[in-house]
């Protein structure tokens, strides 16, 4: 029954998004220009996902964040989709496929089957457990969206997480995990549809397969990571922009702006995308008018979360302006913590100095994994773009291939990458996934046409096939963890035991803690798993409870945890006296030890756990480190 409801909810969500998208597209007059059924549906879905996330914000902030409201939002839109299909008289075609196309379709089906297996498994990705899925679950439990005073993973644009909440609310966790699977596929489908404008079906299928199996897509497609879903908005925005200029249709430009705004509402990097796309529009004929339409629509679609952040912090892109302009100290951020935050970000997330040389060499450094901290290997963008680069250079050197539909996505991607690199943000390659399909949309058709012109089609086929084979092998290795779970009798709890450090302690806390307790924890992955009231004492992203390694003031610490109403603390590490008093331990470690000595913290229980370096490679002998989690009860009357 639960599974049936979950599957039904996914179907209604998909139909609802298509319905919203078709309605908004029709209002903008897109149906007059975009007539290919696949393009209509795929673009409609992209617009619909954004619209659903945008609409869900309002019941969220007004305290009506309930499944009933979600159903009321989805069902009429789903009905509209069905009615509009029936009216349009579209009948499914039965195209004749060549052998190569059938082979490609079979490979895509195999990859999709593994995606489904991942979708049927419980979520295990660290970021998803920490906030992508944890925040929607918390909002649902509270019946409303509330401000989370945490940088990077709390006070951020949450448009896509609103759709996760709708999925979770209507059909539960299975709907949520299948919903992210479907939205990942939708990106690839839209990419395929756009590719079909320029290349034959067999080439478009090959490009789709390469994108679907790109390492960063394998990594982030089947969980809450937003990049691949931002790519859905980016592709749609570029498609509308190019079509708008082709047909001189302001309605399409409006849709392009809406999609860019949805990207902005889903991730701070969307601001860069809006700026890059706006600049490209501005520099073309009739640029002022088009840029005004585009900018208005983008702001309309993307303003919500910036307004929300501004309302609570005075900084729409918290904590960037707060740090840059040295905002005065507040309850949730101080200038001293801002400096610590910036230093931590620089030392952990910025392996490359921001020089012109590094900017130019970034693709090589990332793709060949020469700088491991860029994470360009197992979660990068793969080798495909460099492989076809000689053909692209040859193609773009000829005027006939320098067409607007290839140049516009490439220039937008180039500006995005440049601003992104020099802005001093996180340099991990997977954050570029949102614009990677734009590079492919610019590169691949040019490469195919150039290869045909200079009789290099066979080596290109060989290259594409090898890349697909390598990436599919990667998919098999990645998927084994989930296949093992789904095809065996492994319980949910055992799956988490294997995949999430500290999951056993979360399970115990859910059952073993008294009713009115609230647990403070530092292992961020437990946020989704803890069903009791809890507070994440993140050492680098929040200051309400200072859990930095340098924190040494136990009076302040106790006051902070009391203010949050925390009754229990779950801390990683071994707190045996001999270990806690070792000279190697941090100030914070010693602070906790002093509280234990004063019996302010009463050690209740210890849990054996594992630090897992890679969920994927664990099946192949990857090393785990044995660790401990310790649960303390706070005894207020004995605290300083």
């Amino acid at each position, binding site marked *: 029954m639960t599974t049936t409801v979950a599957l039904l909810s996914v179907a209604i969500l998909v139909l609802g998004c298509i319905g919203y998208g078709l309605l908004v597209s029709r209002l903008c007059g897109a149906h007059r220009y975009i007539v290919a059924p696949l393009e209509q549906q795929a673009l409609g879905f992209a617009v619909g996902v954004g619209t659903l996330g945008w609409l869900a914000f309002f019941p969220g902030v007004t305290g009506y964040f309930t499944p009933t409201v979600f159903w009321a939002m989805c069902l009429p839109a789903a009905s509209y989709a069905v009615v509009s299909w029936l009216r349009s008289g579209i009948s499914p075609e039965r195209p004749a496929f060549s052998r190569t196309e059938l082979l490609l379709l079979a490979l895509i089906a195999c990859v999709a089957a593994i995606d489904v297996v991942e979708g049927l498994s419980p979520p295990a990705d660290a970021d998803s457990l920490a906030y992508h899925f944890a925040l929607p679950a918390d909002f649902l439990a509270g019946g409303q969206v509330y401000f989370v005073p945490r940088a990077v993973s709390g006070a951020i644009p949450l448009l896509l997480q609103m759709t996760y909440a709708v999925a979770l609310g209507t059909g539960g966790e299975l709907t949520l995990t299948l919903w992210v699977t479907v939205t990942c596929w939708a990106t690839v489908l839209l990419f395929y549809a756009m590719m079909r404008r320029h290349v034959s079906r067999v080439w478009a299928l090959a490009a789709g397969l390469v994108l679907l199996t790109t390492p960063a897509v394998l990594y982030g497609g089947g969980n809450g990571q937003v990049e691949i879903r931002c790519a859905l908005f980016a592709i749609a925005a570029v498609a509308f922009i190019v079509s708008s200029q082709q047909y001189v249709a302001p309605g399409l430009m409006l849709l392009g702006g809406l999609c860019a705004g949805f990207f902005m509402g889903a991730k701070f990097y969307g601001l860069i995308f809006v700026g890059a796309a706006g600049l490209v529009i501005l520099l073309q004929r009739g640029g002022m008018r088009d840029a005004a339409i585009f900018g208005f629509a983008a702001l309309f679609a993307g303003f919500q979360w910036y307004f929300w952040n501004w309302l609570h912090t005075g900084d729409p892109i918290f904590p960037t302006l707060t740090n840059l302009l040295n905002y005065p100290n507040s309850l949730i951020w101080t200038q001293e913590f801002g400096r610590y935050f910036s230093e931590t970000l620089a030392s952990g997330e910025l392996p490359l100095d921001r020089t012109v040389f590094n900017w130019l060499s970034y693709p090589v450094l990332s793709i060949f994994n*020469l700088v491991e901290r860029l994470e360009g290997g*197992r979660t990068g963008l793969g*080798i495909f773009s460099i*492989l076809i680069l000689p053909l692209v250079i040859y193609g773009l050197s000829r005027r006939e291939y320098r067409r607007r539909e290839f140049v516009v996505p490439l220039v937008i991607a180039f500006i995005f990458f440049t601003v992104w690199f020099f802005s001093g943000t996180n340099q991990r390659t997977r954050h570029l996934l949102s614009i990677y399909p734009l590079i492919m949309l610019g590169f691949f058709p040019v490469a195919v046409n150039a290869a045909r012109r200079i009789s290099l089609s066979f*080596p290109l086929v*060989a290259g594409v096939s090898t890349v697909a084979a390598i990436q599919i092998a990667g998919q098999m290795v990645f998927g084994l963890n989930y296949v093992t779970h789904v095809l065996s009798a492994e319980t949910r709890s055992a799956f988490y035991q294997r995949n999430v450090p500290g999951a056993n302690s979360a399970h115990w806390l859910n059952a073993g803690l008294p009713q009115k307790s609230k647990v403070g924890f530092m292992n961020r992955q437990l946020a989704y798993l803890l069903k009791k009231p809890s507070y994440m004492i993140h050492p680098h992203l929040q200051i309400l409870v200072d859990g930095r390694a340098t924190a040494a003031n136990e009076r302040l610490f106790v006051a902070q945890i009391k203010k949050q109403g925390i009754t229990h603390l779950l801390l990683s590490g071994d707190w045996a006296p001999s270990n806690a008093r070792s000279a190697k331990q941090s100030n914070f470690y010693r602070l906790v030890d002093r509280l234990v000595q004063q019996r302010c913290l009463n050690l209740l229980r210890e849990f054996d756990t594992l630090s897992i370096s890679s969920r994927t*490679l664990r099946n*192949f*002998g*990857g090393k785990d480190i044995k660790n401990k989690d310790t649960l303390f009860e706070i005894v207020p009357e004995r605290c300083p």
Partner: protein
Amino acid sequence: MNGVIGQRALRLLFWLWIIVVLGLYVGSFGPVIRLLLSSLLP
């Protein structure tokens, strides 16, 4: 004649590019591949 030779040279160069680039890429996964092989082979 020159055109044919040029065409062959171009094809050879592109093949070379594909082989080198793919070789370097696969090589960058050396530690992972070693781990996979060591667990799969007796």
